[in-house]
């Protein structure tokens, strides 16, 4: 059905038509508005001797309710770059997917693995363009031809690089552990233990972080995404499937009765096999 008030095609990209309506509705439906799912979270990263270790918890909250107990916050960007995301869950998810697509196009065009600074620049430009409306705080870690890198990009487009970083609502707790335990050129086990302890501090001291801890180790040889690295001791014991194996219930007696069949009518129908 063609409308006579549409005089040019709608512009692609973000559509702000409902901004005024939403502003009007602001105060009316406070209790019933669904809150966006935030990965209110603890994420941390540490540069060690052979690469980078990233860690994250797995809780996603929607104001006071835990929306997802096994949320994956360590996103794939490139074979040599991974990214932890804190903030609004959808924003981190989509932003990292867009970044990953752009870097894939680049590697297909140039035949090279992308560098971490490219990822950081693309993210910074994208997030600055939207002036913080995209609520994504990200920690990018990767190994490329220039070494091991760890960067953080804030929601307004700020970039920071340090050998150890933490973001999210539990970042203060995690930073305390990192500040205390970090040394340059750590070994792999010590680095994993440091990141685990940092995330654990966030899990214990922050309401919006919890459940399991995931770790991702990036080295020149490859990536080891350990999901989960540490399982929460308050794991839910309810089963999701109720399938019981044979032998669960004991058999008391068994009686076999063969069923006798009588032939009532027999017809033969020729099949044409020609």
């Amino acid at each position: 059905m063609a409308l006579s008030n549409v005089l040019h095609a709608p512009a692609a990209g973000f559509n702000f038509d409902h901004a005024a309506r939403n502003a009007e509705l602001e105060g009316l439906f406070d209790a019933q508005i669904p809150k966006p799912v935030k990965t209110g979270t603890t994420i941390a990263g540490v540069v060690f001797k052979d690469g980078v270790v990233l860690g994250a918890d797995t809780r996603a909250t929607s104001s006071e309710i835990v929306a997802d107990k096994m949320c994956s916050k360590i996103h794939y960007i490139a074979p040599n770059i991974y990214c932890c995301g804190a903030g609004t869950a959808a924003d981190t998810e989509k932003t990292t997917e867009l970044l990953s697509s752009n870097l894939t196009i680049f590697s297909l065009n140039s035949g090279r693995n992308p560098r971490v600074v490219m990822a950081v620049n693309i993210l910074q430009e994208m997030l600055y363009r939207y002036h913080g409306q995209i609520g994504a705080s990200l920690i990018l870690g990767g190994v490329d031809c220039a070494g091991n890198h760890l960067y953080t990009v804030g929601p307004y487009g700020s970039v920071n690089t340090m050998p150890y970083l933490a973001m999210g609502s539990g970042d203060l707790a995690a930073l305390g552990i990192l500040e205390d335990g970090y040394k340059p050129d750590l070994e792999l086990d010590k680095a994993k233990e440091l990141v685990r302890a940092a995330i654990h501090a966030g899990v214990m001291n922050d309401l919006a972080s919890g459940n399991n801890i995931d770790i991702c180790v990036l080295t020149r040889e490859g990536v080891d995404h350990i999901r989960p690295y540490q399982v929460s001791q308050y794991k839910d014991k309810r089963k999701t499937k109720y399938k019981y194996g044979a032998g669960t219930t004991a058999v008391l007696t068994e009686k076999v009765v063969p069923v006798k069949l009588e032939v009532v009518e027999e017809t033969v129908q020729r099949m044409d096999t020609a």
Partner: protein
Amino acid sequence: MVVLKGYGMLRHSRTIMRTAHGRIIQRASKYRIVHDVDLYRMFRIENATQPDVRVFRTESARDGITMNSRGLRSQLKDSVPVAGLCPQGAYGIQDCLRSGFSSVKNELLPSHPLELSEKNFQPNKDKMNFSTLRNIQGLHAPLKLQMEYRAARQIQRLPFLPSSNLALDTLRGNDESIGFEDILCDPAQSEMMGEPHLMVEYNLGLL
């Protein structure tokens, strides 16, 4: 990227604009809206995907030259058109048939903080890039590039059909990157379809 000032070229183009059209755009300081009866038409024609339509502007009392000779700076929109204070029908009154009755309360509504900056994003980016290029390589470089853009912008389907904009995308470098404008609100999948005759007439300025 370093932002270098390219005042020379922009001032030059602004003077051209003034003498060709003989019309001065005034800014109302209180409302930050541009007052001009014909502004609606100017805003429409500033859309980058419009083809050149010199031959059809015979009904205008002014010289029938199209707006394409403007520099990039004049294409930046400094406000979102607000219907109540700057009526967009002919003769400066609200077109009740198409846009309904006007009401100041309905029109003075807050817009999104990003609305204006998103509308101006492409012209701003182009302006910055062209002025940097002009400072590095001289005047010929942006002129040649803009000539190519003008040519590519004319490769369009009729207004009610979605155009692929392939040449324009390749020139801009958008064929190698994916952004929100490729994912959200794809015009090819828009649920609203315009009446074809009206859209073509509007495009040609006959409406």
